[in-house]
């Protein structure tokens, strides 16, 4: 498992004339962790959906290691190496934790026994192995989020899209997830792009932060730069002159 470079080149998407995303470009180098932040409704998840093949951009392209992936079906995007989690978690509720992750692992391993072994190893790393026989619907929210990450990792992605995996976690659980993602990134060189509202996680993980507001990119820089960026402060705190 090694990371791939992600390039967004001027992508845009409108829904019945409503401009959700407009002319967004940025790159995530192979093996880097970047964060995508912005107020609610800024278009973050729409951008994710265009990378993961759920939506096709009206304009612009998404490339992974130079290969155009925008416009591919979600399962083909997964083939190409995109793994993702959902903001509103979508585990296979009626199936066991192990089966959930095995289904992800079957993507690159045709033999069910092989896939199950690979799934078990991933569950071990995420601390879910002890719950492997529980049904997903009986898990707590933090465990469901970890299960989503495990299932996405099982597809052996080159780029991992994490949509608010920290939301709803307690500070200690956030630290555990942060440590896990950092370790994963360090070991495998997996490229990670995360949508996150939890600044504690963003500051700890992301080398670069992209800020979007009303569907447009308004800033891009290191977490320290972003924290002082006037346009970002304006979006999050309002215009100080007006206050």
């Amino acid at each position, binding site marked *: 498992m090694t990371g791939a470079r992600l390039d967004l080149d001027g992508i845009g998407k409108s829904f019945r004339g409503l401009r959700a995303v407009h002319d967004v470009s940025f790159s995530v180098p192979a093996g880097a962790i970047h964060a995508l932040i912005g107020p609610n409704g800024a278009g973050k998840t729409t951008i994710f959906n265009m990378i993961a093949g759920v939506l096709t951009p009206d304009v612009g392209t998404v490339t992974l290691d130079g290969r155009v992936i925008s416009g591919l079906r979600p*399962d083909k995007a997964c083939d190409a190496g995109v793994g993702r989690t959902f903001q509103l978690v979508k*585990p*296979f*509720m009626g199936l066991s934790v192990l089966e959930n992750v095995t*289904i992800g692992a079957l*993507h690159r391993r045709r033999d069910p026994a092989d896939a199950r072994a690979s799934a078990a190893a991933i569950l071990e790393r995420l601390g879910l192995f002890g719950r492997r026989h529980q049904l997903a619907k009986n898990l707590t929210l933090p465990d469901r989020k970890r299960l989503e990450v495990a299932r996405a990792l099982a597809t052996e992605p080159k780029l991992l899209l994490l949509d608010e995996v920290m939301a709803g976690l307690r500070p200690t659980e956030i630290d555990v997830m942060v440590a896990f993602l950092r370790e994963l990134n360090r070991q495998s060189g997996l490229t990670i792009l995360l949508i996150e509202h939890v600044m504690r996680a963003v500051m700890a993980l992301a080398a670069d932060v992209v800020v979007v507001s009303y569907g447009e990119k308004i800033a891009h820089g290191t977490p320290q730069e972003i924290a002082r960026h006037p346009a970002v402060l304006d979006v999050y705190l309002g215009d100080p002159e007006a206050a």
Partner: protein
Amino acid sequence: MNALRRLTGNCTPRTLWSLAALLLLLLLAPAFLGKYWLSVLILILYFAYVGQAWNIVMGFAGQLSLGHALYAGLGGYIAAGLFFHYGIGPWAGLFAAVAAAALAGAIVGYLGFRFSLAGVYFALLTIAFSEFTRIGFEHWSWAGGSGGLFLKVDAASNLLDLRGGPVMFYYVILALAAGALVLCRALLESRLGRYWLAIREDAEAAQAVGVPVLRCKMLAMVISAALTALAGVWNAFYYNNLFPETAFAMSRSIEITLAPIIGGLGTLFGPFVGAVVLTGLGEAFTDAGDALGIPGIKQIFYGLALLVIVMFRPAGVWPWLSARLGLGERTP
């Protein structure tokens, strides 16, 4: 041997022995069952088999088909028509029957899944196809039109032409039911089977982990339709008559769904257990109705019994029963 181990891999010895005992009992049943009870058992196995076939689409892949009479009807009509007109035996005719039903399943599936019809809307599509096929057959003289198609009754056992008495039909439907059980087990253990379950649980999440959703749903429809067609062929030769009004009836489609729903959707043994419960209850209430001399009481009690089962065992009888009996698979 390897394939066998894979199929039985996780089953507890108790499960395997119970299964073997049941199979032996069923194999010997005609020797000590009277004509009446044999016909009841035949009915049970028929519903277990078609239920198993329907369960692939609904229980595994999560797509509600309420038009499975279409595939049984097509299968039956084609095999019976070929035999009636050209003397082509059912063992040859079934290839045409299965091919036609599989094609019909592919058409219905494509129209439904390609345009993302889900839930009741997909169900409506399946009903519509079954209904207009019924109307078509009512006007198709090759198939006998609305007057029906009749096969000559021949009690002399002739397995090649599927002509003969109840015992022969019993063994044929037993073989089909056992075969379908093994096939479904193998499917569930396969990659495709796992993908069906993923689609049933959440299609969007399934697609995100690389499941080709449309192709998998199509395969479920085609396999299910093909298996259902075999039941139709058997049914046509067992009853020796076919009418569009009954072969493609909505009630026939509903009938197919009942055993797996009562027994346990998506379970391997649910269709069989459901068929035992349903047919058993049906027969018991028929007897009770006759004894009391009140016509129609059968339907009332039958409906009430189903209501009670669905209320108290919404997941079906089998998951509950198997836990009680200690049958199942050990956790790996």
